[in-house]
């Protein structure tokens, strides 16, 4: 078929980005492998701030974008319980790196808001869903759920159907009460 002009760029075997090896060498990060073209490294919690500083300020070319922040709840699978997952993108060198940090329940983790503004809402959502607090965040409040909501929805021990509110007056799903009215 139409295969004339694309011969030079066809053999594009994915390679792990250079940054993965750099983080392993400089910060003692553990290489979590290269799966389907995406590299993941695990950074020790106390080195996280220096990793941020390296990615954003020291590295040339710098990682200008923090694409995504989320967490994984590993309840019953591992201690510490949570993994916070950062996705970084470097548009100049076209590198992507996924960084994971383990966090125990109730422990704080340094915020990336001083380095990337996009961390602002992403970390708030992470706090909202998992209850992981980010130290140094300017406005660590719930984002999607309302203020005063009880529980952390995306934790594995949060029931799928939600919790019954303690005050029955606010039980919106109480159909039998509505019928009586």
């Amino acid at each position, binding site marked *: 078929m139409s295969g004339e002009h694309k011969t030079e760029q066809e053999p594009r075997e994915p390679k792990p980005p250079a940054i993965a090896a750099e983080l392993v060498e400089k910060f003692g990060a553990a290489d979590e492998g290269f799966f389907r073209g995406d590299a993941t490294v695990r950074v020790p919690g106390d080195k996280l701030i220096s990793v941020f500083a390296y990615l954003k300020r020291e590295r040339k070319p710098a990682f*200008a974008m923090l694409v995504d922040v989320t967490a994984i709840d590993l309840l019953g699978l591992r201690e510490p319980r949570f993994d916070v997952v950062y996705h970084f993108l470097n548009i100049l060198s076209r590198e992507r790196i996924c960084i994971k940090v383990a966090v125990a329940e109730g422990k704080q983790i340094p915020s990336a808001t001083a380095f990337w*503004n996009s961390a602002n809402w*992403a970390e708030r*959502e992470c706090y909202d*869903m998992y209850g992981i607090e980010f130290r140094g965040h300017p*406005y660590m409040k719930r*984002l*999607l759920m309302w203020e005063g909501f009880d529980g952390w929805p995306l934790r594995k021990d949060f029931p799928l159907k939600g919790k019954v509110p303690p005050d029955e007056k606010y039980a919106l799903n109480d159909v039998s009460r509505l019928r009586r009215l």
Partner: protein
Amino acid sequence: MPENGLRTETMVLNFGPSHPATHGIIHLKLELDGETVVGFVEEPTIGYLHRGMEKLAENMTFHQWITMTDRMNYVSAPLNNIGYTLAVEKLLGVEAPKRAQYIRVILSELSRIADHLVCVGINAVDLGAFTPFLWGFQQREMIYDIFEKYIGARLTTTISRIGEMRYDFDKDIIYMIKCVLDELEPVIAEWDQLLTRNRIWIDRTRDVGVISKEDALDWGFTGPCLRAAGVPWDLRIEEPYLVYNELDFDIPVGTQGDVYDRYLVRVEEIRQSMKIVRQALEKMPEGPIRIEDSTVVLPKHEEIYNKMESMIADFKFVMHGIRAPEGEVYGRTEAANGELGFYIVHKGGRSPYKIHVRPPCFYLYSAFEKLIKGRMIADVISVMGSLNIIAGELDR
């Protein structure tokens, strides 16, 4: 305090939660000094449309959750469907056949056109220009007719499946697509005449909601808003997926990063998408549209109803889901608003262990205060329309 001894103070204005210009339910508390926005009293309230889709994903099969992706960016559902199925295919390590990929490209670009038509149209309506909206909406309806003809649904399409496209393009659909493209051409030209050199439109959009290159990257901007700020970054070119590397198109880039540039970028993207669809229709090879792997792809309809084995396979699929390898992938595609990412963690079993969605407009909206600070209250509307905030995607 002024000389005459009168006290002045700023005013708090509640904008939303339900307001015609918010396009969804979003609550802003603006602090106004006269007509100038001093800032936000507190961070904007979102989450009114939060349906816990990521929680639901942990209890659904991979196939079932495709229907949830319809309900995220409901203006361009096919882009979400295709983005999600590509992420799952990445996890599985499979690739749909060429013809299916071409079909996906065509449907993606059509829905990108529909999304941009609505975005620019509504942005214009908010600023008082009604005609471009009607012009654009008519074409959008015709694009939705194509989706309806193809899959049977208009908005919640569920257009793509894992490892396959359910239906092939027939002559009618190709004819309909060609008709839409032919009719779209004059509409875009008329938009150009109506808006591009329109004094009022320029006054309302030029130098409004400006963001620099560096700030746009810092705030996680992607898509047309990032390109309007002058960064030529488009995943279709930079990290080509589907068959975009076989197609020839350009990505428009702005210079100022204001609302006017976002408008220009979107209009040019419509033109480029039309170019892509035309090429894809021409280059589309004959061949299968599903991979021949019965562990990934649902059996065909006629087989389900006529063959016992296929019926059992279908039942097993629906009840137990596909068997995906354990692992984590971050699948990303260029949706109409920017980078749409699906972070899938799988630890075996029926359901994914976790799915996290990276919605593009979440990050666009988080920079909203920066974009409107010190501007007039009327500019709030203008900027909000240009960011194309889709509440379904923002809140998930």
